[in-house]
């Protein structure tokens, strides 16, 4: 999966948690919690959804690295390289 595809994964996770989010409206460089009115419970559900779609382990200390769409996509692409590929 490349960074662009991870971006789609994050968008999908976001819309699963908050169906009213319009993907086109998400600014990739602005904090997701701020622009989408997402609290820690929503955020945890987004992280779980990403984990379920990709199999990538995301330790709690790395949560801040997922704070924007761009940083989350980059983090996931990097995490995939670090670990053995988990995607079929």
């Amino acid at each position, binding site marked *: 999966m490349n960074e662009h595809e991870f971006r789609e994964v994050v968008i999908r996770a976001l819309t699963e948690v908050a169906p009213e989010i319009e993907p086109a409206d998400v600014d990739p460089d602005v904090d997701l919690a701020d622009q989408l009115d997402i609290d*820690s*419970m929503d955020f945890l559900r987004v*992280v779980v959804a990403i*984990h379920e779609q990709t199999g990538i382990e995301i330790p709690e200390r790395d949560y801040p690295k997922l704070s924007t769409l761009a940083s989350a996509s980059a983090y996931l692409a990097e995490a995939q390289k670090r670990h053995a590929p988990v995607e079929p």
Partner: protein
Amino acid sequence: MPSLGADMESGTVLEWLVKPGDAVKRGDIVAVVDTSKAEIEVEIFENGVIGELLVGPGERVPVGTPLATVLAAGTNGAPVPTAVPPAPAPVAPVVVPPQVAPLPAHAPAAHRLRVSPLARRTAERLSVDLATVTGSGPHGAITRSDVEAVAAPVTAAAVTEAPPPVPHAAVTEAPPPAPPAAPADRQKAMRDAIAALMARSKREIPHYYLELQIDMTRAVEWLHEENVRRPLPERLLPSVLLLAAVARVVPDVPELNGYWIDGGFRPGSGVHLGVAISLRGGGLIAPALHDADRMSLDELMDGVRDLVQRARSGRLRGSEMSDPTITVTNLGERGVDLVHGVIYPPQVALVGFGAVRERPWAAEGMLGVRQVVCATLAADHRATDGHTGSRFLTLIDRRLQKPEEL
């Protein structure tokens, strides 16, 4: 029409999940009602057979209006004197068991649409029948774009075509017509409901306020260690520790758990923790976690997750709306240090938590840096005095120093 919260004056039936002749038992969900705040699943409080549906989908009626008649099981048409629901109490002290019975098999589950609130409002504005929309969202959820995609042809058709004849079973089986409320009206209705309730609270309740700084270092460290051990989907949030601490302490201070009604205090029939949940796009709702004092940390976490999810994009149940016995608000989530809460009448106490932050902290003659949260209590001075409230906050502090026992 049940009272689904002290701020509700009327409600619109969105959908019936039963039809005349269906057998129902206590706890079954029989209808979906739209208050000004949310879509609420209405449970039935007795066993029997549905007689007649008195209020059709799309109809708005005042609280207290019978929605349907229920026949006692086994009889042949002798209506039980009480309709659905029984006469509305100022607050519904009737507690439906938390394990809500699953939907009866005959409920038209296939007609339960997954629709985001924004999409529903858009559909109302554009007069789109949601049953005609194909959802492209997760699990077939209907999004705003889906509604807009079909809006033009549908509105055009509505102008030129005569309305189709309504089939006999339409009342119980057809998807409901959306209530005729524009998004702006709905926002206003939500605002009005909150305004009325909060004004009543400040008018009637002589609040007293207490605050206590609580050292959360041990709790936060314990939580991190615990979460390292846990697979991602089972991790806990700090806010759940706070809720747990409150839930564990409430039975020790029963004077704060219940309602002030008709000039006297009525204790709650359990610890039903109201959880204040902000809605995206504005508004606030505080449904109950039933018997929270008896829930494990994991059960509390699952319960809050479920409530938040349903409050924001799904449906809450009538019993959750009507019977919180004490409410917790966690505004620290948004970064503020403390909250002086406004009590939800007829409850007598509201617990608030600010953000958990690093602070300079003096203890045992030393100055150090600790994780600290400010806990506040707003309580009804008619029901308790500051001494009781103080004891309550101190007990919460003590609990949070032993997170492993929560």
